[in-house]
């Protein structure tokens, strides 16, 4: 039982590694990889496999999730800006400024991911239509 379990695990590791990166596996396998990455909120990993998943709906789900996350970040940013406008101790003010800068970087990254996902979604929709 242990031997078979190890064999299955080894097989999965090989498939999830170099073989999966070659894009030669069935689309359903890549859909699983994308969904698994999405469950972990690992957007770079989801985007890595999305191009082989051949599923415009998956791309749309990723775009939607990225937009929700970006909206959440923007609300947080707005709340921190409100706090900065009120009187704060200089040390605390600096912490909030760092938080805002990090938030801006996160938003920029989310926008990049969204653009990539939208590009793939458009390509997949084009393929489906054609």
């Amino acid at each position, binding site marked *: 039982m242990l031997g*078979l379990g190890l064999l*299955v695990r080894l097989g*999965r590791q090989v498939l999830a590694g170099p073989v999966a990166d070659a894009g030669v596996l069935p689309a*359903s396998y890549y859909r*699983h990889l994308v*969904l698994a990455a999405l*469950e972990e909120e690992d957007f770079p990993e989801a985007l890595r496999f999305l191009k082989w998943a051949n599923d415009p709906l998956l791309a749309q789900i990723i775009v939607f999730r990225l937009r*929700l996350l970006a909206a959440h970040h923007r609300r947080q940013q707005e709340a921190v800006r409100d706090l900065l406008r009120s009187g704060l101790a200089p040390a605390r003010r600096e912490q909030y400024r760092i938080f805002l800068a990090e938030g801006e970087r996160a938003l920029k990254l989310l926008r990049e991911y969204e653009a990539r996902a939208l590009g793939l979604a458009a390509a997949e929709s084009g393929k489906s239509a054609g």
Partner: protein
Amino acid sequence: MAKKDLSLNGALVGGMAGWVAEVAIQEVTGHHITTGLLELLGAAAGLWRLDRRLTSSLTDSLERAGRGQDQDYREIKSRIEELTQDLPELREILGNMVDAGISAQKA
């Protein structure tokens, strides 16, 4: 005949077959083969699980859209429409899910 009733070879083969079946069932119903080899072969179990995972992803997305909205379905629907203007398939699916929620709330 008495010898065959107590066949050591038969017991061994039967035991092996049972063990293989047990391992197979354990792997298929667990999370090992269904997320790897069986799906790769396009097995029905894997495809069913893929559908289930996709549904779970949609439900999770809907749940995330509703966070901080006090579960008011109309607000959630309006937020979804705002964020999915250029995502027609997803907009329709999530819209239907929210409509089902509104109907359930009314009932």
